[in-house]
């Protein structure tokens, strides 16, 4: 960049890139890319399962291809959601303790929901 975009005070503080931004950026793009086909499959599956009774739905979840794709979809979705929510919080919440509390809550919540979802699929697939 020809012109420096930082004020003299900003330069004096010396806060800048932590040099690890690209990894986060890339992981978000990769999860987005994976979610395109997964979402299409998921929507078609939801439509196919509308009105299904308990036995039909459980048999569908437990069959190999849906079970595998569901686990992948859950894992990638919550990774993507945790990351997206983190960026939103970092952009709009500027009180440090509130930001930290929300970031921790989002991360923990996403891991909890992802594990719960994957556990549910596994339990149906392998029998309780």
């Amino acid at each position: 960049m020809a012109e420096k975009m930082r004020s003299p005070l900003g330069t004096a503080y010396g806060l800048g890139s932590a040099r690890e931004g690209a990894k986060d950026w890339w992981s978000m793009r990769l999860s987005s890319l994976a979610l395109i086909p997964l979402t299409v499959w998921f929507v078609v599956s939801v439509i196919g399962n509308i009105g299904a009774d308990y036995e039909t739905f459980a048999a569908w979840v437990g069959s190999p291809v849906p079970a595998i794709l569901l686990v992948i979809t859950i894992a990638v979705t919550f990774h993507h959601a945790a990351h997206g929510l983190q960026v939103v919080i970092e952009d709009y919440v500027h009180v440090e303790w509130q930001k930290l509390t929300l970031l921790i809550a989002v991360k923990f919540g996403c891991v909890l929901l992802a594990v719960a979802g994957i556990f549910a699929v596994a339990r149906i697939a392998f029998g309780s």
Partner: protein
Amino acid sequence: MPIANRPLSPHLQVYRLPLTALMSISHRGTGIALSAGTLYLVWQLLAAASGPDAYEIFQRFAGSWLGLLVLLGWSASLFYHLLNGIRHLVWDAGYGFSIEATTKANRLILIATVALTVVAWVAGIASWRS
């Protein structure tokens, strides 16, 4: 460089957001809505893992007006976020930054969101009846 020369953000109270900006903030809005919507999916899976009784409670909610309304918002948000997300990937690849391309993509995304939502619901209702 004096601070006055730096680019300024628009003042949100007095600045009418163009469609592109509204669609940008909607991407975040639908993303947050979809994050909340994952609770619904996890509920369905946990209910199915727990047994027929728990699943029936889920189904009763899913078939209610509130359940259908949640599903409508959820499906429209999903299609919007999917399509606008693809646009973001195209931007990340370095294409489509001109005003004409952006305006065209805005329209395409909005029309396709409505179209996909309608098609999904027609297909869903058809598969429900059969």
